[in-house]
């Protein structure tokens, strides 16, 4: 089909918010041309969010390196999506402005569960049948999906032809080569790719359920191991990014300093599925930063990872970057832990607000979740920050953690009181601002808490009200709504029967579920009712001997390790980070830290 002509969309573009989301032409965007294989990276959220994602850029680059076409597409906001439908113009890619259905492969990046309806929204706008079965035998693009949520692929298994589990740097493009070899998505193609690590073909696995809704067994392929890239220094990394037309969420050059995290906080899915920790060297990162600044014109470099403070050579890296980058370029270090606060001063001097995530209010509960932070450390770091001129503190906590009682909530109030005292102990220029944000705990697959139940609506409400009543005066309190967290838990822990619910929810008008202002609770509730599926059964506690809906996926962390960690949690025992010695999670054979390389 012909590419979409922007001038023909003029009226719609002018009616919509931020039309430059839909026009392409970004500086640094790959010069796309149709090639032997045509891939489009699809991000099921807005342009400003997707353009900040580094994963899709890495994947796109892996196709380009093999001389294949790699274009991008983002979920259009509702105004533009609606307009495209009315004009009968199919959803198109950013650079080529080609209808999505003209590509060989559409790769969806699943970063959070609440974007699932947006994947259907994009397929629908593209005029592609949603269900795998409906596409069978037709000349549709191969629909693939990857990213962290793919570790439990089942809720989307009805819609996706191939899931990529784990690191996507090379296996995605390997699959493209095999596709070319077979001349399309033939039976032989599916057979061949299903033998690769990191490839899950849902058509080859059938979960069989018991009467009570639990999984009895998996028929067909029963074991899918994640793909693992061991050497990040040698791994693909783009030396240029497309610079977004309109301001994006993270409008800066991004380095991936490390993948994985040593800490093993028991609630954190990323901390387990991205194991083992792999690092890039100072030289590699300095080179990548210089290239990115040169090719993007950004004035800021962000050192990303799950816990950048744990990068052993952080001081050396900062020194090397300062020496090699233009002097006006500032550094951003997100995800620093409390105990590595010093490095924070390396950042932009204009910053006045500091963020801590103690996650739980008492030492007892922090031990339960293996969050290796003490109150003294938080207070010490806060004092240092105040003395350096900071006047605002943000604190993040979770509600509904296993074993939590009102005492732990009281602990949250206590921390706030102590911070207030600390600030007022000396004369300071500005008034102190403290804000406390609480999220509802979502027990995720592949964590030691994967067997836990999620706290119910009444419990969560009680906890939120407790804090509203008891937090010291002047503390700004914000909390997340219950239903979206519940839905997140259902989708994260779901099985294949949820596909129908997701489809119904989409048809009921649910899109952008991650956006508070666009969340359509009624649409979801109706979808569960219409399908006769009770969402609550997915957030129940699971038996330790139960087969879990994601047990056919192997993220290479032993289930016995997760169980051991669960028992230690209940015993209130901290396991600590891999820095203190190997904890035997099951990845020893491929883990640099287990070999002593920290």
């Amino acid at each position, binding site marked *: 089909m012909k590419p979409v002509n922007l*001038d023909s969309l003029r009226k719609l*573009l*002018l009616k919509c918010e931020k039309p430059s989301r839909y026009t392409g*032409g970004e*500086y640094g965007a790959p010069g796309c041309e149709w090639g032997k294989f045509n891939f489009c990276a699809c991000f099921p959220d807005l342009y400003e969010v997707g353009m900040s994602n580094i994963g899709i850029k890495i994947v796109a680059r892996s196709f380009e390196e093999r001389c294949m076409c790699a274009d991008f597409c983002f979920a259009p906001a509702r105004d533009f999506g609606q307009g495209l439908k009315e004009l009968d113009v199919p959803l198109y890619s950013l650079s080529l402005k080609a209808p999505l259905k003209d590509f060989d492969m559409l790769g969806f990046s699943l970063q959070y569960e609440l974007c699932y309806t947006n994947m259907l929204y994009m397929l629908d706008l593209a005029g592609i049948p949603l269900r795998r079965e409906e596409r069978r035998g037709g000349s549709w693009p191969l629909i693939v999906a990857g990213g962290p949520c793919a570790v439990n692929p089942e809720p989307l298994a009805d819609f996706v032809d191939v899931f990529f589990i784990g690191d996507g740097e090379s296996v995605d493009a390997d699959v493209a080569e095999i596709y070319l070899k077979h001349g399309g998505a033939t039976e032989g193609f599916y057979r061949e790719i299903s033998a690769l690590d990191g490839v899950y073909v849902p058509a080859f696995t059938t979960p069989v359920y018991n009467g009570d809704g639990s999984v009895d067994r998996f028929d067909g392929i029963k074991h899918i191991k994640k793909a693992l890239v061991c050497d990040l220094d040698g791994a693909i990394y783009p030396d240029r990014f497309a610079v977004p*037309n*309109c*301001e994006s969420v993270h409008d800066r050059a991004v380095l991936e300093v490390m993948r994985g995290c040593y800490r093993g906080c028991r609630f954190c899915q990323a901390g387990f599925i991205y194991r083992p920790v792999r690092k890039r060297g100072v030289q590699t990162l300095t080179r990548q930063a210089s290239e990115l600044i040169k*090719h993007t*014109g950004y004035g800021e470099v962000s050192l990303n990872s799950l816990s950048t403070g744990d990068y052993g050579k952080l001081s050396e890296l900062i020194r090397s970057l300062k020496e090699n980058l233009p002097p006006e370029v500032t550094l951003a270090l997100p995800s620093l832990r409390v105990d590595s606060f010093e490095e924070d001063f390396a950042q932009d001097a204009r910053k006045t607000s500091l963020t801590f995530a103690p996650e739980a209010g008492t030492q007892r509960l922090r031990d339960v979740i293996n969050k290796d932070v003490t109150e003294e450390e938080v207070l010490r770091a806060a004092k240092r920050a105040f003395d350096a001129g900071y006047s605002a503190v943000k604190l993040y906590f979770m509600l509904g953690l296993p074993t939590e009682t009102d005492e732990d909530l009281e602990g949250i109030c206590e921390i706030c009181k102590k911070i207030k005292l600390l600030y007022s102990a000396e004369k300071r220029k500005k008034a102190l601002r403290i804000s406390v944000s609480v999220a509802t705990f979502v027990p995720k697959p592949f964590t030691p808490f994967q067997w836990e139940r999620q706290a119910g609506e009444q419990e969560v409400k009680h906890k939120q009200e407790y804090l509203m009543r008891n937090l010291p005066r002047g503390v700004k309190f914000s909390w997340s709504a219950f239903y979206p967290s519940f839905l997140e838990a259902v989708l994260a822990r779901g099985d294949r029967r949820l596909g129908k619910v997701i489809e119904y929810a989409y048809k009921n008008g649910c899109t952008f579920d991650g956006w508070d202002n666009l969340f359509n609770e009624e649409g979801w509730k109706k979808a569960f009712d219409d399908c006769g599926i009770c969402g609550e059964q997915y957030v129940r506690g699971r038996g330790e001997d139960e087969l879990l809906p994601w047990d056919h996926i192997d993220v290479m962390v032993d289930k016995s390790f997760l169980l051991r960690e669960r028992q230690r949690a209940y015993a209130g025992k901290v396991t600590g980070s891999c820095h203190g010695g190997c904890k035997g999670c099951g990845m020893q054979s491929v883990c640099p830290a287990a070999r002593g390389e920290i």
Partner: protein
Amino acid sequence: MIAFKYTKTDGAEYISHLDMLRHIDRTLRRAGIEVEYSQGYHKHPRIFMGNPLALGVKSVCEYCTADARYTQDFIQLFNENSPGGVKCLEARDVKQNPNFAESIRACRYEAAGIAPFDEREILAKSSIVITDMRGREVDIRPRISGIEWRKGRLIFTLGCGENNLRPDLFCNYICGIYGGEPAEIVKTASFGENIF
């Protein structure tokens, strides 16, 4: 200082003024052209743009000044590093900031898609009162200085700056009376001091 003229076409007409400022800053940085920074607490690059162009209006004559050392190869450097549709056409080495936001008094535009009408009807009116985007009644007649037809395209010149009239509002007014719909509006010339 460098004063330069650039385009905003091929999709770039949908980039907002504020984003455009960021893009020019980044283009210059990528090109290795060092722009002076303002002094003070919130430092910002000394880049001075002309008046904002309405979203969706293309232009082949936007003007901008950057406080940086002029080089002979500026146009080439800029164009190798700019986003699609933003291309430098001319550049001058200037001693002083020409302040295009003040100096440009009027601009000429071309529009396609507007139903044919006798332009003398409009020009003969002594006042044309419309409701602007903020809901205020304004007389736009003094801000219209010329209308003509050329090869089926409407060519019109409107006030800019203090006496500003948005070309899209003008087209809407015309289409409201005579029909049609602007398929494309392009700014083709700017008038005032220091223009090249």
